[in-house]
């Protein structure tokens, strides 16, 4: 066959035939596309800085009122991201690498806390700890005095950790599947215990995944508002909210400070992560799970505790609220059918668009990194640190004042753009991983067999990238399902989601409706995650 004759696919540094011409065009296109996408993601940041400047923000006011909340924000964000990193990594190891009983069930259950809006979670904790609440009674039953007040740094730390650690668990689990178990085994045969082997050999391999996940948690905490407000912890975001009307320049100054801080953190993480090492791809033999022995008991208890805090307690609290309302017929499931459908619709749409939009950046940062792609990636990640309200306002102002975009104002399109800018970062890391899952050699050999790059993409690249793309899209979907401030501001009139319904009833203290709508949201999130993501993913498949 003639196939044997052509020279093997050219290495990057020795182009063959007319390849260079094509490649230069591709390189240029990559830079232009990357820069354009990055620019869109940077719009809200640009808006914040421009407004701060135009409002002649007073530096002395800012210096007077920002440092204290900033310091509180830093404390909380550091604590939450460190604890989420530890818990997420430990749970990933337990559920992927050991013989933990029921680990397949845990793999699904332990991801679910991600679906709860954190203000609902915080409220569930507050009522759960109150006299008559389920935590209060449970603690009383075992003879522990429940805390009289559940507020401040400690409470915010606990609640945010409980709902954000899956941001670490997910990428670390995915990476752990590809780290050869023979490395841990080698370390054990060289005299390490299982724990030592994990810490000294596997954790360094997981570092990019741990750092990436922790960064998301950190940025989430920076932009979080609902939970910290309920828990009485005064962060920078609360300054942005509290002053947005009475002292707009201070509000925008605070947003600028938040933004600059986020940029520093993102840059720091990129540096810590170091150069991307090629992903070896999934290991052939997954190896025998580490035998936990008696450790299985405390390990199971730890999983139970995490699931209890992040899932069972909130759900039980919500169910208590909902039951009261369902009993006297004030609320019914039928009330939430329409919002559930529209919520699912926008969330899936946002997920698809987000993955498609960040994919070009992921391809460039992974295969041919350049300055444009790095900056664009930074802009994508930074979008997560900007409060949803600010992103919404920025897009509203842009659409209102740009004649060509005017028709987008108060349409679903603009809302989807807001979701994508806010949550694109969650798709980026997984998409980068997906791109790395297509080995260079495979792409080169497929090139010899099929010269249509589009067909090649659908036949070779896409199937291999699917798990990563699904994971990234899934995260965007979950985040969109519970998004509130941007939805309120940008949604077309009459469009409501489950999150807006929850907010509307919660705000005025209609807890029965809040409870029921929240349960519907949790069920919908779990269902969609299962149908669209987990069913196709190798993390739970095995």
């Amino acid at each position, binding site marked *: 066959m003639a196939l044997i004759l052509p020279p093997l696919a050219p290495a990057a540094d020795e182009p063959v035939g007319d390849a260079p011409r094509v490649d230069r065009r591709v390189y240029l296109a990559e830079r232009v596309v990357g820069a354009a996408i990055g620019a869109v993601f940077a719009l809200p940041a640009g808006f914040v800085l421009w407004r701060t400047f135009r409002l002649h923000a007073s530096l002395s006011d800012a210096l007077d009122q920002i440092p204290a909340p900033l310091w509180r924000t830093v404390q909380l964000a550091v604590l939450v991201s460190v604890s989420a990193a530890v818990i997420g990594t430990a749970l990933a190891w337990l559920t992927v690498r050991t013989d933990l009983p029921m680990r397949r069930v845990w793999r699904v259950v332990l991801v679910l806390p991600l679906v709860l809006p954190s203000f609902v979670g915080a409220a569930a904790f507050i009522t759960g700890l109150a006299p008559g609440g389920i935590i209060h009674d449970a603690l009383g039953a075992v003879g522990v005095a429940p805390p009289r007040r559940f507020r401040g740094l400690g409470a915010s730390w606990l609640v945010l950790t409980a709902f954000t650690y899956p941001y670490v668990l997910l990428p670390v689990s995915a990476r752990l599947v590809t780290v050869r178990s023979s490395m841990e085994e080698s370390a054990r045969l060289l005299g390490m215990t299982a724990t030592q082997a994990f810490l000294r050999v596997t954790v360094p391999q997981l570092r990019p995944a741990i750092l990436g996940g922790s960064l998301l948690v950190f940025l989430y905490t920076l932009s979080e508002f609902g939970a910290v407000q*309920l828990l009485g912890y005064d962060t920078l975001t609360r300054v942005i909210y509290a002053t947005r009307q009475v002292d707009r320049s201070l509000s925008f100054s605070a947003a600028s400070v938040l933004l600059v801080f986020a940029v520093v953190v993102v840059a720091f993480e990129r540096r810590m992560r170091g150069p991307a090492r090629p992903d070896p791809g999934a290991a052939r033999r997954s190896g025998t799970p580490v035998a936990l022995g008696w450790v299985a008991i405390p390990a199971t208890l730890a999983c139970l505790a995490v699931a209890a805090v992040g899932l069972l307690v909130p759900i039980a609290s919500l169910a208590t609220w909902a039951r009261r309302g369902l009993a006297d017929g004030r609320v019914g499931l039928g009330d939430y059918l329409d919002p559930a459908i529209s919520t699912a619709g926008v969330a899936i749409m946002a997920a698809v668009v987000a993955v498609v939009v960040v994919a070009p950046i992921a391809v460039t940062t992974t295969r041919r990194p350049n300055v444009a792609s790095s900056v664009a990636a930074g802009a994508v990640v930074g979008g997560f640190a900007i409060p949803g309200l600010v992103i919404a306002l920025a897009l509203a102002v842009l659409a209102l004042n740009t004649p060509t975009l*005017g028709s987008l104002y108060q349409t679903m399109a603009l809302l989807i753009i807001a979701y994508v800018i806010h949550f694109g970062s969650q798709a980026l890391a997984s998409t980068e991983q997906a791109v790395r899952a297509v080995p260079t050699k495979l792409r080169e050999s497929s090139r010899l067999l099929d010269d249509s790059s589009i067909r090649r993409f659908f036949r070779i690249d896409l199937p291999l990238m699917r798990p990563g793309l699904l994971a990234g899209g899934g995260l965007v979907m979950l985040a969109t399902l519970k998004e509130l401030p941007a939805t*309120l501001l940008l949604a077309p009139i009459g469009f409501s989601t489950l999150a807006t319904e929850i907010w*509307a009833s919660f705000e005025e203290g209609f807890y029965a409706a809040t409870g029921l709508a929240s349960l519907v949201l949790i069920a919908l999130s779990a269902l969609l995650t299962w149908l669209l993501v987990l069913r196709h993913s190798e993390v739970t498949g095995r």
Partner: protein
Amino acid sequence: MSRTLPARAACAGLLALVLAACGSDGDEPAATGDPVTAATAEPAASGATSVTIYSGRNEELIQPILDSFSEATGIEVRAKYGDSADLALLIDEEAAAGRVEADVFLSQSPGSIGFLDDLGRLAPLPADVLELVPEAVRDDDGRWVGFSGRQRVLVYNPELVAADELPDSVFGLTDERWRGQIGVAPSNGSFQDFVTSMRATEGDDDTKRFLEALAANDPVSYPKNSAIVAAVARGEVAVGLVNHYYNYRALEEDPSIPSLNHQFAPDDPGSILIVTGAAIVEGTDRADVAAQLIAFLLGPEGQQYFATETFEYPLAAGRQPAPQIPPIDFADVGGIDFDQLGGGLGSTREMIADAGLEG
């Protein structure tokens, strides 16, 4: 979620004629067309068949009455819900871009209306709409009108404290007796409104002293009124500074909870009435239907709704609150001048923060 039915507009006239029996007090035609008689289904002068409102007032608390308005007039109501402050910001941005989307703004917090008024984003209301309510609860310049009221009260847990121990004045809360027992919501709009009002009646110095003494008494901060009521009901704190209706609503959710309202003396700064305001957005070309809608909120059906469904004080002349709520005389209790609030709120917030009450 569309609230228009094509057939509805056609039969609206007939329907409205039936409802006309419920009529209204003011019959004088105004320059913009009589809003109240318009509510009885004469076509709007602008020819508009819909009206857009931005409502900081919660959907749960206003949508039913908006639906009634649509049914009565055949005018479609398009409502965007959100936080009053966020919607005010959006209205300002829209106006700045020359693209007025909202016709009516309903604000839960007086501050947001004051904010837009200061920026010149509100249009004058027709005189006959203004005259539906007493002077105490409307703007002197005629740019906003109150349509429901909430009184500041002290909610308490009778299992922890006897009614006769409770102070007659909010200043009494600085007493050592209440150390660590008071729930407050310093970041909430209604608390800030209360402080602004106190500044107007008592002066900045006394207000500042009060806030510092309150802060020194180790109060517990909550994000919102409903959280305070819940905290009092479960005994976390003995008393809390809230709006009156949260307790009635909590009791409706769960009649067994131990919480009662206590009114300070009528002339006390602690017992002011905070009104929910409505305004027409400057630059709208549907001012007539906007006025029509506001008049409907002040009409018998609207006012009855606020009295019995949301447990607020109806503000239109001659209307009574729900039976379980003690009636008050608007002339007796202090009110809030929205205009005063527009500029004053910034410093109010600082004052609260300086006293150490934030968070």
